[in-house]
């Protein structure tokens, strides 16, 4: 297994525990021998964690603009009779 195949082909499956036992062993052997891939894996894992953490809203949500709420309600009130 090369660094390229580890990073491009097998890394995602490794993190999702989708590699066969033989491929997983090969992956772990490469990691044990390759400092660059260990570093890449650590930074990749952290990237995924940061992306997920960034979903948290920085502040409580503001109430929606009242004009928007009114526009939505008006639009449905004005909808053709068969939709009312």
């Amino acid at each position, binding site marked *: 297994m090369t660094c390229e195949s580890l990073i491009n082909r097998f890394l995602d499956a490794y993190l999702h525990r989708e590699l066969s036992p033989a491929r997983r062993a090969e992956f772990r052997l490469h990691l044990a021998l390759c400092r660059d891939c260990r570093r890449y894996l650590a930074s990749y894992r952290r*990237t995924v964690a940061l*992306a997920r953490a960034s979903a948290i809203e*920085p502040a409580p*949500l503001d109430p929606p603009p009242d004009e928007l709420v009114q526009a939505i309600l008006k639009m449905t009130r004005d909808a053709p009779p068969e*939709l009312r």
Partner: protein
Amino acid sequence: MPDDARKLDLLLDRLRARDPAAFEELVRATTARLLATARRFLHDEQLAQDALQEAFLQAYKALPQFQGRSGLPTWLHAIVVRACLMRLRRDRSRPETSIDELLPAFARDGHRKSPGPAWKPDQGATPEDLALVRKAIDRLPEDFRNVVLLRDIEELDTRQAAETLGVSESVVKTRLHRAHQALRTLLDPHFRNG
């Protein structure tokens, strides 16, 4: 199911009967969160509000046929996301970086070119870190950004993301992996040691 979601599902019979008060309750209870979702996809307040109006009209039309399998908030969220994606497809005007420039490069022997130092130890993400991550997500090419938004931010599973985007689950997985690789490249200058 959270209390708010349960309350909304209890509205369903009234909504199917086109009770205007029930629809107003639904709009008031869900607009703030759905608008936040639309803003994340569209980056423009007016476009986000337009997409939301369009989505609510679609939802209003479709309510009598809504089976209730997914829960009302999930169903509405999917309609809003699809309305945003439609708008993005209509207006592909944003200049984009190619994903290839953001993917790791390899020498012919399979080693990574210029691997660089390790990242600084993880001491928890600060609000500044998270703001930086949001900006980096916004810099991803659109197809890749949409997958990150759906999977990591809006928390859809692979099947739901594939359905929403109209692609196969394997395409979602491949795009998400590449998007994470690209995001790592964009974050590297900020988090690397030295």
